[in-house]
């Protein structure tokens, strides 16, 4: 849901006016230096949790029934876009390179 936000900071800062423009760039650079990694990390954690969440609610799809289906169906519409990536991640084969990267 939120990984797309990772691409770039808000676009409305693109006003081509001297100081303002400079300040904008400066903000981006400091953001990149100081907090980009942190943000990335937070988003990654968020994404892992998202997948964990889908697993515990929609586990049936992989043959792991956890939540009673009547109620998990209520949540189904919200996770439709993530189902494909989630399945890919859950069913992916893991090898030694996973530990390295």
């Amino acid at each position: 849901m939120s990984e797309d936000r990772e691409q770039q900071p808000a676009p409305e800062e693109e006003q081509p006016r001297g100081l303002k423009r400079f300040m904008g760039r400066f903000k981006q650079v400091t953001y990149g230096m100081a907090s980009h990694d942190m943000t990335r990390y937070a988003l990654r954690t968020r994404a892992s949790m998202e997948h964990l969440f889908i697993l515990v609610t929609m586990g049936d799809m992989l043959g792991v029934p956890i939540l009673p289906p009547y109620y998990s169906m209520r949540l189904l519409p919200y996770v439709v876009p993530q189902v494909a990536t989630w399945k890919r991640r859950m069913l992916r084969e893991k090898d030694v390179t996973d530990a390295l990267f």
Partner: protein
Amino acid sequence: MAEATGTDEKLTSLAEEFEQHPERRYVMFGGKGGLGKTTFSAATAFWLSNKGHKVLVFSVDPQASLSDIFEKDIFGKGPVKIAENLFAQEIDADQHIKEYQDEIRQKILDMYGMDEVPEEIEDYITAASAEPAMEESAIFDSVVDIVNRGDYDYYIYDLVPLGHALYYLSMAKVYDEWITKITRLREEMREQEEFVARVRREEEVEEDQILGELHDIRDRIRTASGILTDREKTAFFFVVTPEEMIIVDTRKAAELFAKFDVPIGGYVVNRVLPEELLTEDVPGYLKKRIETQRKYLQKIRDTFGQDILAQIPEMERDVTGMPMIERVAERMYGG
């Protein structure tokens, strides 16, 4: 009542129970199949509606017999008016599940502007509906709808057999804890999101709809089990008959229900053969049956004591149609 049953024991009246606890709006008769739960539900609904209360008697049993007792086909037709202030409803669980599935599909289509539901999602929806737990959940969920609407003074719940109710209660307990857990996970996810938003100085993050749904699901589960377990509002009566197996099973069931905090209002004894029959020239068979019954009635008194609220005699014909319901109501509540 005593003249009808031939027993001179003083019984706490069922009518008194209702008068003393006007706040008990959810009335249930529980017991093994075929003991007369539906009969008592219908008779109680009749009696209460006659007293000027607006009553809904409803059933969630797929083999519902309210249609039979009121001699009117009401299955899956919503609340049907039977008499003044008296409404009956038989919930069609399958229908409810179908509508629910369609709702989910429509929501997916609307949310993402799709023309059709993606195949794997559709597969999931279809497969999930085949789960056995689906029906229980659907049933209790529709009960929540009915009760939440609050259109009636009394809700008489012609209960599914004991096993189902217990199964749902135990499910509800697990679900509740479980949903509390995933709600926490969801909230942690939100914290991560908010952190990112703060660092990037973004506006407030959008509201988490899933969290909202989770809270709603938990509320519904609590309402559903609350209907069965609310000490203030629930009156749960067991139906017993003077038979060895039934007495033993009822006692066991009562213990189990007590474990799940179901407040047991009392016991109603059904199918009591009138003792007057003995004075006439009776065949040995009937005589023997009445003597056996006497033994079991004693056992019922020993087991349930003061909690026995009424004794209803075995009728000379089955209870269907309003005149018979009225007669049972008279026996139960003293007219």
